[in-house]
């Protein structure tokens, strides 16, 4: 698709065009000390000049003089919370004279996501496979996903915790978004390069009268992306990892990581691909019921409780299940990695367990492996 030029003061025109097409605009905004993806009304809500510092077990924002709208890297919670909400009503059952009546909610919001990053687009594609790929399709996810408009914005900064390139999920935005923006500031010139990837995206852009970008601008975009790639400090060596993890369930490193792991579930909650859920009936005293689905976690003991006992009672078994799923069994199940290198699990882990460090240690032969001092704490 042809790359167009969007002056920074026309960004709101793009937002207006999206809102006019009946979308609920959600994008980054500063809230409660973090960059949060939430409903926004205009560019005034964007976290202009704010950057995020993310390190193992630590997150902090910093205000800068920059006029950049998308200077931050990623939000604590991914877009998962909109497509697959933390709690979701499946149906309501009400008692009446004729017995019981059921009501299924089929209305789903129509979202436009502003600022989807490369790793996040990859995560959405992974969850598409989970919820819409097999024989059993999740109707709520499907409706939300199909009616969503995705506006990707390429990264300008990286965090210490990012490792998208090594798992092939970024920093460039992969296929699947409707519109892609690159924010560029060169001297006094603040603009976006815009391209549509789908007809849905093109229909929005057609409402704006945009000029074609010149070739030098496209070159700046490419250089910007390569600079971002070169800034990535963490990486995971994926080749051969699948068999190493499967072959070494008793690697001594599992015991070491279990000493630090709090089994608090934070990593799975912030992970943009984790999809585990439980179903609960919420009753009232009048005998009415609402069946709800809510996020659950492989780190919760109740999640793996079946009649007679728990299939994974130790934290070691839970952590092993989680990491092995992300890098090995996910490939058997969905033909891709379950990790997109966003680093959220590293940032939001209170003891700062670094999944890249764990993978590196687990890749060593268990026979010659020697316990090393963790780089953290």
């Amino acid at each position, binding site marked *: 698709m042809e790359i167009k030029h969007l002056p920074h003061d026309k960004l709101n025109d793009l937002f207006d065009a999206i809102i006019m097409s009946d979308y609920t605009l959600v994008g980054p905004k500063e*809230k*409660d*000390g*973090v960059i*949060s993806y939430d409903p926004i009304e205009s560019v005034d809500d964007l976290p202009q000049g704010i950057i995020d510092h993310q390190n193992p*077990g*630590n*997150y*902090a924002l910093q205000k800068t003089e920059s006029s950049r709208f998308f200077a931050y890297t990623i939000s*604590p*919670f991914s877009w998962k*919370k909109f497509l697959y909400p*933390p*709690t979701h009503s499946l149906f309501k059952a009400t008692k009446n004279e004729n017995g019981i009546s059921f009501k299924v909610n089929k209305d789903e919001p129509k979202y436009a996501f502003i600022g989807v990053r490369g790793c996040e687009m990859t995560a959405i594609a992974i969850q598409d496979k989970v919820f819409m790929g097999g024989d059993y399709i999740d109707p709520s996810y499907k409706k939300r996903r199909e009616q969503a408009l995705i506006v990707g914005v390429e990264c300008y900064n990286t965090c210490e915790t990012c490792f998208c390139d090594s798992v092939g999920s970024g920093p460039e935005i992969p296929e699947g978004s409707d519109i892609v923006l690159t924010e560029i500031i060169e001297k006094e010139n603040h603009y976006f390069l815009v391209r549509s990837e789908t007809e849905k995206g093109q229909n929005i852009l057609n409402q704006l009268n945009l000029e074609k970008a010149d070739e030098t601008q496209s070159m700046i975009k490419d250089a910007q992306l390569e600079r971002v790639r070169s800034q990535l400090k963490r990486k995971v060596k994926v080749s051969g990892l699948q068999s190493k993890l499967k072959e070494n369930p008793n690697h001594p490193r599992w015991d070491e990581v279990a*000493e*630090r*792991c*709090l*089994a*608090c*579930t*934070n990593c799975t*909650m*912030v992970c943009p691909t984790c999809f585990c859920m439980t179903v*609960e*009936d*919420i*009753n*009232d*005293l*009048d*005998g009415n019921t609402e069946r709800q689905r*809510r*996020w659950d*976690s492989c*780190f*919760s*003991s*109740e999640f793996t409780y079946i009649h007679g006992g728990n299939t994974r009672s130790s*934290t070691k078994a*839970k952590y092993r299940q989680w990491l092995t799923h992300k890098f090995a069994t996910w490939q058997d199940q969905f033909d891709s990695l379950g990790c997109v290198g966003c680093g959220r699990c590293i*940032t*939001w882990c*209170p*003891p700062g367990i670094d999944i890249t460090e764990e993978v590196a240690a687990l890749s060593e032969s268990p026979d010659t492996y020697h316990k090393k001092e963790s780089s953290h*704490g």
Partner: protein
Amino acid sequence: MANAKPKLAVWKFASCDGCQLSLLDCEDELLAVADAVHIANFPEASREVVPGPYDISLVEGSVTTPHDAERIKEIREISNLVITIGACATSGGIQALRNFSDVKEFTNIVYAHPEYIDALDKSHPISDYIKVDFELRGCPIDKFQLLEVIISLLAGKRPNIPTHSVCMDCKLKMNTCVLVAGNEPCLGPVTQAGCGAICPSYNRGCYGCFGPQDSANTFSMTEVWQNLGVQDETILKAFRGFNGFLEPFKEASERLEQK
């Protein structure tokens, strides 16, 4: 319990009454509760006492005297289901702080005539004496959890009382983590959910009112607090709170004491 309204009794042991008051605190749902169960023995609410046996006994408080150690056995005998409510009944409560010291010393200091005091060496959770059918944690308990238990009993289903961490509830509410983003010492990762993550929702660290979650790693939690610059004495006191006598909180404070 299928036809007639189940008979409910509320019993008090060593406690502050806060948990049983949670039943009266149900306000909007109180009339519906009174409609669904026969409140047969609840001195805080009514002077009318209908004799046992009872279908459901809610027990508040810990066992601290030989007299109470006998009384709880009698309650067990006349109750179909015994549900303990609150930190005192499920862990020994804040008064279990004396379990780490010599109770004789305290009675000698506090009472003019300590010879009249007939106290056990330790403050015990109810489950040390009798079989308990369900435990509801918290200091105090959460009234919605109490309602959930009553409603579930009436509906004949297992109540939704999770044993996972407070962190999961924070994340389900989309709270900003006070520990990671605020460097606030928080016991949420080792504490069982149930309060609706109330303290982190108001930018404070969790106090551990609901006791340890099902996989609590107090060793790692201690290290996390130490890395935030918290003194060992403060960490010890944090673990030795309302649920200080419950493992592994007990073990964590004792480990710090031995250092």
